[in-house]
């Protein structure tokens, strides 16, 4: 697998009321092609600032961001970078520009100057991939939050990106909307081999990731498989983050001297391990 995204010693600072704020301190990360990476961290930890560097919405104060071999600092390549790495934001209502679903999805490719027959084909494909083809002639404002968010994803997919960056796309959705969006993202990752970088506060969305990255105060402080990361229950809790309830339970049981693995993430695993206890 090749590299999709590499950041080398990425730093970012800005001025707020004359005060210098260091939002990213030396972040070096590699994301491979086809990987599903989840980033967690509380508000203000630098997650969104980091994400915005990945498709050249922000430029590093120092260090580099390389997207599929392209440095985001190269002004001539900005549009190419954004075509490779597409971004979906938190609020579905802020991302929809047209009054008909298919026109909204066509907006991106139209701006690339793609011929109209090709646009029709891409829009159809993109809507199919988020399971919203039946809604192509509907008005976006009449859709649910989860449906709107899937339209926003389709708009990015129509650009044929290699990588999807999602900045808390489920934060404003109800549980079923959240499920729709997550299933869509997982499917795009598995079936279309799109690299996914997903920022979220919902731990249950992180348990199936290939890798979980925890950010705090502009730095990466934990990184590993979901089991490796979530088993550090006390550390995550001290950062004000959640862990799955069964992982929390495993940690409490270990403290009581019970011999059980610390990286249990699901109900099934917990039942199995408890039944195996001597």
């Amino acid at each position, binding site marked *: 697998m090749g590299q999709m995204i590499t950041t080398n010693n990425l730093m970012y600072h800005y001025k707020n009321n004359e005060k210098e704020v260091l939002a990213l301190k030396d972040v070096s990360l590699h994301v491979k092609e086809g990987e599903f990476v989840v980033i967690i961290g509380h508000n203000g930890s630098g997650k969104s600032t980091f994400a915005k560097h990945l498709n050249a919405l922000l430029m590093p104060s120092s260090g580099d961001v390389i997207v599929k071999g392209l440095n985001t600092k190269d002004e001539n390549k900005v549009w190419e970078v954004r075509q490779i790495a597409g971004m979906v934001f938190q609020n579905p209502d802020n991302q929809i520009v047209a009054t008909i679903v298919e026109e909204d999805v066509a907006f991106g490719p139209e701006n690339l100057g793609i011929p109209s027959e090709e646009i029709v084909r891409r829009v159809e494909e993109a809507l199919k991939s988020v399971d919203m083809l039946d809604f192509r002639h509907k008005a976006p404002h009449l859709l649910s939050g989860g449906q709107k968010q899937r339209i926003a994803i389709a708009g990015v997919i129509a650009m044929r990106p290699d990588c999807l960056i999602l900045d808390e796309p489920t934060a*404003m959705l109800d549980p079923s909307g959240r499920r729709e969006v997550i299933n869509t993202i997982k499917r795009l990752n598995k079936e279309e081999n799109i690299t996914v970088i997903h920022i979220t506060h919902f731990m249950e969305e992180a348990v199936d990731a290939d890798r979980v990255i925890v950010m705090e105060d502009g730095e990466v402080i934990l990184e590993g498989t979901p089991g490796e990361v979530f088993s550090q229950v006390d550390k995550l809790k001290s950062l*004000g983050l959640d862990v799955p309830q069964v992982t929390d339970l495993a940690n409490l049981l270990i403290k009581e001297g*019970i011999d059980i693995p610390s990286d249990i993430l699901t109900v099934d695993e917990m*039942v199995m391990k408890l*039944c195996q206890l001597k």
Partner: protein
Amino acid sequence: MSIKIENLTHIYNPKSPFESKALDNVNLHIEAGEFIGLIGHTGSGKSTLTQHLNGLLKPTSGKIFINDMDITDKTVKMSEIRKKVGLVFQYPEHQLFEETVFKDISYGPTNLGLSEEEVLARVKESMKLVKLSFDDLKDRSPFELSGGQRRRVAIAGVLAMNPEVLILDEPTAGLDPKGRDDILEQIKHLHNQMGNTVILVSHSMEDIAKLVDRIIVMDKGSVALSGTAAEVFKHVEKLESIGLGIPQISYLMKRLKEVDPDFKDEIFTVEEAKEEIIKWIRRRKNA
């Protein structure tokens, strides 16, 4: 302050192609001082219901009594209802508008015609309740605060009205886990301290299981289930069929009960689950 809802039905856009029945013959009784968790899928009628309780929406049919006052009666003044029933909307921080935190929170009480000292006292008190420092923040613009702080300013604005019934429509939506826990803890604390009636609308069974006296589950405009967490969580299949579920820890305990019927399965917190599992391990060792 008790609330009684009788045969409440609400139809949006009646006699038009967009006609839809949001509430269908709802009957509910909420005791004074109860802490209620109101849960349901989007479109189940939760928000429509809460908006009736402070007179923002008028029933198509049915009656609502706050204590013994029928608030659907045309002679009842809306200002009277809103003094008693405070409603915190979803994303309440979007409704902040004043130049300073003080002005924003004092807007409601000032409009009640209270004296300046009384308004000041209420702003201080309500900021204290949501753990915002009066001295540090009163002169700041609400728009330069963090998301969690802005939300607390908005909640303080409702608390400053001293409502006897406090309704919060998904007060933690979009917050990070710490922001969520802070707000919920403050609501619980407030309830313990003031003994007011609280209705908390939420999507999170985990949060609700920890906090409330009674859970009311709405589905398709009707009350589908009502009772303590133990009573409501027994109906796993029904909850799942309406797009809800029970906390992960409760699923675990149900599965363990299948393995060993001696397991207690009415468990909703991780701490309780730990105790129960340790007891089970000891029993097995002694057996």
